[in-house]
């Protein structure tokens, strides 16, 4: 493959040979930069039982720049907006080339377990999460049942 850094090829190889439990990564049209991801909702969270689709793209500058990732499945989560964009520091200013596709996906999965309504992307959801967490969690579970099957 022309111009693909060895680093990316190695990452793909490892994801294939040593998959992350609950996270399935598949190349789109044999691309080495564009992937469809299916992530299982973490247990003990309102996303439990759901299968969530994401898309991930490694820009030209990767690994100097972070991967671009977003959910395609509708999510009720204070750090995920209506277009599935994710508010996560390592995807922005806390990115380090030492991180990988694998660590990014694991961090996203962790974010599902531990929503952070104080650093929201979806403000109305964050509001609900802070004012009535029980109700918010119930809504998240309802959305999971509705959209993430």
């Amino acid at each position, binding site marked *: *493959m*022309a*111009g*693909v850094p060895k680093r990316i090829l190695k990452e793909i190889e490892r994801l294939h040979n040593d998959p992350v439990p609950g996270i399935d990564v598949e190349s*789109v049209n044999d691309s080495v*930069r*564009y992937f469809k991801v299916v992530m299982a909702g973490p247990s003990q969270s309102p996303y439990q039982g759901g299968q969530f689709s994401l*898309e991930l*793209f490694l*820009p*030209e500058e990767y690994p100097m720049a972070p991967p*671009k990732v*977003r959910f*395609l499945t*509708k999510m009720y989560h204070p750090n995920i*907006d*209506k*277009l*599935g*964009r994710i508010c996560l520091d390592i995807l922005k200013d806390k990115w380090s080339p030492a991180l990988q596709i694998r660590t990014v996906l694991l961090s996203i999965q962790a974010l599902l377990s531990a929503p952070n309504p104080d650093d929201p992307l979806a403000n109305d959801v964050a509001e609900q999460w802070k004012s009535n967490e029980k109700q918010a969690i119930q809504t998240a579970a309802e959305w999971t049942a509705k959209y993430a099957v």
Partner: protein
Amino acid sequence: MSEGTHPLRPRPVPRNFLLLQELENGEKGHGDGYCSYGLDKSDDTFMYNWTGTIFGPPGTPFDGRIYRLRVYCGDQYPKQPPKVWFITRINMPGVDQQTGAVNPREIECLDKWKPSNNINAVLRSIFSKMTKRESRLAQPPEQTTYPTPLPATGN
């Protein structure tokens, strides 16, 4: 083909990430001050339907008016150009007076479409057409609109 043969060959960004970038550019107001655009609905996951505005160029019959447009980016975007309609009525060459549909043959950016073009470039190209002598026509009353077209879905 060995690794590094075409180190500078541009790698196309997938449609969705391209459109996410365009959305961000629209929200940040990059570019000049005469065009603005964003998603028609904020939960349109695949970002098909966009809404744009063009501010009537000064010194033209469109001066002082704000034109609303609808831009549809299909699954094949940006290989295929977007489809564009005026929502606000406008009398200018290349705009169907029944539907507001913009004839791509009449707008340079659409006629000579390149995947490196984007929504902003399309609006700019229409803006440019509005400044042309041929567009100096009598205009319909302000704030009248074309009949709403059915929303396009998929491709």
